[in-house]
């Protein structure tokens, strides 16, 4: 392992940055689609098949691990299909390939362009798509395997439900990424949202899980509205929702942008990417819509790893990358993306520093890293962003699954104040090592994949004259990230051995069947009373169960993956893929000299390795000093002594800067008040008017009723008066 690392390091330092050095591949031909391989259909098809089969299992009340094996098998098949398709796609670099599957929505009201609306189930295969699909299907397979053990406590309906949503998620994600039109993308977009909803709310008896699921769905919907409006505007502007046709229609504008005449592009076209951005921010948890992601950790950990760390949340990055041609036609879209990304990265990092729940820390780190990716897109290193997506997918999955293993083993305990030295416990070595690798990646430790991908973004930020400040923000965030990552590692995984079991037990107490045999310990049913004795001596009747083979295998594979993820950088694999797709950054003619930003006079691409390595090391050292040195128990560390220095800031950060409360106060409460007012107005005013209209004849009748004396003469009198009036009118008319 160390040998490999040093090898990689030497190669990396020797090689010049690939984005600059390697001759760029030929520009992709946008707007042309050739027939693609049919195997591509298997990529979404097999997960769908898995979903259907699992649904049948659920209908048949299967109570074994059959759904897991079905899903793992199908997903592995999908991964194989993805590899096969990838090979076919790279065979014709720069050319998108299309596969038509099924007609979906077709409308036509004329012959001219823009007078027909067509959205099909069709696939658009280019290198960007395939990059995403490779890690989506690959990771999904591994995590499905991991979950087969992790979810085993819930065999039966819950297990089936989990795998149904899981397979459906992969299908939706495939639609999102592979769809050849915006509507299919939207289908995937909302489909992953649905699966996310179902999986976050997996423990549906917990109100917090239900609330988190709802929050995720609604927050995503807000973003989706932006995306939907963007799609409509795209259609109105370009007359199509198919990528190929959009790119074709947008080509003149891209040319304009390339010539630096971005001001001549119609405003409405510049608006499209801004609307897309709203959607991307919702799905990828960026400011101001990020608040759902930390709460989404209510779901089972494999879900957090796959959906809320590795794949789904990168859909926003994919969207921006896919429509980079349009983004480059917009004056505001990329700066918005860049600054929001940087802001999110910093904010989430500060919150992550102050949390105690390790899964939540990972969630905030995800938000923060997503911010990095957006910043990368914003500063126009789509290759960097995509690469960061790629590396992040591996190491964050590793981290989450590690956390999941801990949670699984310690009955839902996630508080870093109640765990210590886990890596040294029996059977936890692999997890500890995997966590170390993951943390090093996340912290940007030199020669790790995370280090390289983060550097690409940082360097490009500093390289751009307008984004210097942004670069500093990101650099600072990198330091914070290193600190809070290792804060977790030093406190939970090394140090004195200590643990307190959690009180959740995965809702074991609700399902009486307890753990499966794979855990290798006997008293599967005895965890429920642990809540009453949540003290140190709880260890007497609680034995943490070390992860079983499936979890360990997956941890190992993922760890290897995170390490190897550094390798593609060295051969310019990811940049090559990106350059051959629509996410290629165009050269902008600046009229004169290409203004290059510098880092204190140095070329940022050259020095950023050292700078970020130093920043990362500083963060790790801080964590080491504050959280490891001299720590004897789990509950406290030296860092606590520093808290007064920050005054209320620490408390605010711990309370997530009160953003949730702020939203609640600013949006939810007013809306609730308005709703109640509307309801009352509807009931009293609108319906009241109706009732009044109904009441008036009644009242009139009641009043007139008194005129009915019931006496014969009275009626006669009335008649006479009536006759008299009529006759009098007649007389007046006559005379």
């Amino acid at each position, binding site marked *: 392992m160390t040998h490999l690392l040093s090898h990689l390091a030497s190669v990396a330092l020797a090689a010049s940055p690939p984005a600059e050095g390697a001759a760029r591949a030929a520009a992709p031909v946008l707007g042309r689609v050739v027939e693609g391989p049919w195997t591509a259909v298997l990529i979404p098809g097999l997960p769908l098949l898995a979903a259907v089969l699992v649904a049948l299992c659920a209908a048949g009340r299967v109570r074994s691990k059959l759904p897991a094996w079905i899903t793992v098998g199908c997903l592995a098949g999908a991964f194989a299909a993805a590899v096969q398709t990838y090979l076919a796609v790279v065979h014709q670099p720069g050319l998108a390939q299309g596969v038509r599957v099924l007609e979906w929505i077709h409308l036509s009201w004329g012959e001219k362009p823009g007078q027909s609306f067509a959205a099909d189930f069709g696939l658009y295969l280019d290198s960007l798509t395939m990059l995403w699909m490779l890690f989506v299907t690959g990771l999904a397979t591994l995590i499905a395997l991991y979950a087969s053990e992790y979810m085993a406590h819930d065999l039966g309906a819950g297990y089936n439900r989990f795998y149904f949503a899981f397979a459906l998620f992969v299908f939706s994600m495939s639609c999102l990424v592979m769809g050849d039109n915006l509507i299919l993308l939207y289908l995937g977009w909302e489909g992953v949202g649905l699966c996310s909803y179902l999986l976050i709310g997996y423990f549906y008896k917990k109100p917090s899980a239900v609330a988190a699921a709802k929050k995720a769905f609604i927050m995503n919907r807000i973003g989706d509205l932006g995306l939907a409006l963007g799609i409509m505007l795209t259609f109105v502007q370009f007359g199509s929702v198919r990528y190929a046709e959009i790119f074709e229609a947008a080509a003149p504008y891209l040319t304009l942008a390339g010539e630096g005449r971005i001001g001549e592009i119609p405003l409405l076209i510049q608006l499209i990417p801004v609307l897309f951005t709203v959607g991307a921010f919702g799905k990828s948890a960026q400011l101001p819509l990020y608040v759902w992601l930390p709460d989404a950790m209510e779901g089972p950990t494999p879900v957090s790893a796959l959906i809320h760390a590795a794949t789904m949340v990168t859909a926003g990055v994919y969207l921006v990358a896919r429509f980079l041609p349009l983004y480059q036609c917009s004056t505001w879209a990329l700066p918005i993306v860049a600054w929001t990304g940087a802001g999110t990265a910093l904010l989430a990092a500060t919150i992550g520093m102050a949390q105690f729940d390790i899964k939540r820390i990972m969630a905030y780190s995800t938000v923060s890293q997503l911010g990095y990716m957006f910043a990368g897109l914003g500063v126009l290193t789509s290759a960097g962003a995509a690469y960061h997506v790629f590396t992040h997918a591996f190491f964050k999955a590793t981290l989450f699954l590690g956390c999941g293993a801990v949670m699984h083993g310690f009955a839902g305990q996630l508080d870093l104040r109640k765990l210590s030295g886990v890596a040294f416990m029996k059977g936890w070595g692999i997890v500890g090592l995997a966590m170390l690798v993951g943390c090093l990646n996340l912290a940007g430790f030199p020669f790790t994949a995370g280090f390289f991908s983060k550097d690409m973004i940082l360097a490009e930020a500093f390289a751009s004259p307008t984004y210097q400040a942004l670069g500093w923000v990101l650099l600072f965030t990198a330091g914070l990230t290193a600190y809070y990552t290792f804060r977790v590692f030093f406190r939970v995984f090394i140090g004195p051995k200590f643990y307190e079991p959690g009180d959740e037990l995965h809702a074991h107490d609700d399902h009486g069947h307890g753990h499966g045999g794979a855990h290798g310990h006997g008293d599967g049913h005895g965890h429920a009373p642990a809540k009453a004795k949540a003290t140190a001596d709880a260890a007497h009747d609680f034995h943490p169960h070390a992860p079983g083979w499936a979890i360990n295998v997956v941890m190992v594979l993922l760890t290897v993956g995170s390490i190897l993820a550094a390798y593609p950088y060295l051969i310019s694999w990811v940049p090559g893929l990106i350059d051959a797709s629509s996410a290629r950054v165009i050269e902008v003619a600046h009229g004169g000299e290409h203004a290059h930003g510098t880092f204190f006079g140095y070329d940022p691409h050259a020095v950023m390795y050292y700078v970020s390595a130093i920043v990362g090391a500083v963060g790790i050292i801080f964590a080491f000093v504050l959280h490891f040195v001299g720590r004897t128990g789990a509950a406290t560390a030296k860092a606590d002594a520093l808290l007064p220095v920050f005054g209320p800031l620490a408390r605010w950060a711990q309370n997530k800067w009160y953003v949730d409360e702020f939203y609640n106060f600013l949006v939810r409460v007013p809306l609730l008040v308005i709703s109640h007012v509307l309801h009352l107005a509807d009931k009293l005013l609108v319906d009241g008017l109706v009732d009044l209209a109904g009441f008036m004849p009644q009242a009139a009748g009641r009043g007139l009723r008194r005129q009915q004396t019931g006496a014969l*003469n009275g009626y006669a*009198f009335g008649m*006479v*008066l009536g*006759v008299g009036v009529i006759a009098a009118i007649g*007389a007046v008319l*006559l*005379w």
Partner: protein
Amino acid sequence: MEHLISPVLLYGACAIGALGVLVALPRERLTPAVFGAILLAGAFGALVLGLGFAAPDQVPNFHFYIFSLIALLASLRVISHPRPIYSALYFILTILAACGLYLILSAEFLAFALIIVYAGAILITYLFVIMLATEGPTADQVEALNEYDRVAREPVLAAGAGFIVLAALTTLLVGGSTGLKADPRLMPGDTRLAVMPQKVNDSLRAAGLIKGDEGVIHIEKERRWGITPRRDGNGTLYVADKNGLGASTRLIPQAQWPADLRLSNTEGVAFSLIDGHPGAIEIAGVILLMAMLGAVVLARKKVELDEAAKAQAQRHARLDEPDVAGVTR
């Protein structure tokens, strides 16, 4: 439009009449029906004068005024007399006076029918019912008038309303009838004679206009007997012998017709009734039948006294039979 009568006079008369009625109506205290009658007579006089002046060149028809005065005064008494029996009797008088008017209007058949049916039959029924339903005078109280007979209900309002209706009605009637022209199309004339050959024959024979076996024929419709009268008085009679139409046929122009060769009123009513409204007669018959059945059904019905009346009846019973009460006690 030409005013037959000055509106001021008309309304004045109406108002005085209304006042008269008001005064004449029965009330709690003294009933000055006499004053009311005087006032009404005054009103009537005013009307007569007004109407009389309206047609000054005509000698007023004395009978008309007599009958109408009787009719109106009698109707006043009908509504103002506190005793139902007298009201009914006054109603008979009204009918008789109305029959007089009918006679003036040469509706003699109806005049007598009215007397027979109304005065004879209907009013007698009324009298029966009045007798049945009115408590006779008891020993201590000679004037056993019911409160509801003695006191009128809302006389002022009623008189006011009546005045309005009367004013409006007279305005309309007078105004409407002044310009009215008799519609010649409505007159049946002598057309009906065409279907009464025997009458024509008899009349002609009595006048000596036909002799022997001659008879009238009607050429156009090819009937054996008939005439072709015309509304304009230029009708023609064809008189032919038994051999029918031929050389011996001769014509008798309308000018030579005997005076009695015309439809009498009764005949006219009969034609109108039987020929013109056969369905209505049937319906009227059914109505009468139903009324008879209804009356029978109603009369046979055993009536339950309602609660209050029952209690009162029991009280009466107890007072009437103190012995029974005493025994039980």
